């Protein structure tokens, strides 16, 4: 498989406490967003942060893995909904650290049952490159539930 390369650009002006930055998707041009320290650690006030971008990355990575695992099991999903919450906390002696990523997944996958859906979610966690990476330093939890009935 070829290497896939993705790039982002950031411009920061001033000190961390009073300055601010703009982060942009350099490869796709899909977004260009203001950031600041105050909105990172306090009230977001409409601004994104590194942790929110990681939450979006992990949710997206996990949802593609889960869809792929369900298809492999012969029960491709009609619809999946994934929420990811990344928590940064102050760890004594270490400063701010990303301590956990919590994934909640709900899906409609005809032919799957609660057990096979749970197995697919476990396999998706094992197969998602981002899950594997952050387990070295943070806790990853997966709460997966199959939806019953029609879309």
């Amino acid at each position: 498989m070829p290497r896939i390369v993705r790039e982002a650009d950031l411009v920061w002006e001033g000190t961390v406490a009073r300055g601010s930055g703009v982060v942009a998707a350099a490869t796709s041009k899909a977004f260009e967003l203001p950031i600041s320290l105050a909105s990172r650690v306090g009230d977001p006030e409409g601004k994104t942060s590194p942790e929110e971008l990681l939450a979006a990355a992990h949710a997206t990575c996990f949802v593609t893995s889960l869809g792929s695992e369900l298809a492999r099991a012969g029960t491709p999903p009609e619809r999946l909904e994934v929420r990811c919450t990344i928590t940064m906390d102050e760890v004594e002696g270490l400063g701010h650290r990303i301590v956990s990523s919590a994934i909640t997944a709900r899906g409609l996958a005809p032919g799957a049952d609660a057990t096979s859906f749970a197995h697919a979610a476990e396999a998706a966690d094992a197969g998602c490159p981002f899950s594997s990476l952050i387990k070295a330093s943070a806790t990853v939890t997966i709460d997966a539930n199959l939806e019953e009935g029609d879309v």
Partner: protein
Amino acid sequence: MADRTANVTWIGALLDGGGTIESVGSDAFGPLEVTWASRAEEPDGRTSPEELIAAAHAACFSMALSHELAQAGSPPERLETAATVTFVPGTGITKVALSVRGSVPGMNEAAFVEKAEGAKEGCPVSMALTGVAEITVDAALA
């Protein structure tokens, strides 16, 4: 403690289906479309997990570096950072390359390079990505 949340939906199979980053807790962005083809091949205007990780790392590193420079008595006027994430399907994320150019009154290049190395080691996103085999930083004064 800061919690940050994102919501994503996916409809259909991996290769011919597609997903949407519907919303994030801050409301700063979304909906943003994602597909496997735009992740693995041409982006076609769509973001991907790897690009979002690049954005997170560039932002985290820049804040950490700004902090280190201010601590050293030379707050930056301006930092321009690029983060490039390399993903090999089947293997994972193999590299993050950071590159920074700084306008920092009162600081020489050697000291700036040292601060950039420190920010690379210590920023929370770097710490979360300790599983990446190679994280590099190329730093110079503008």
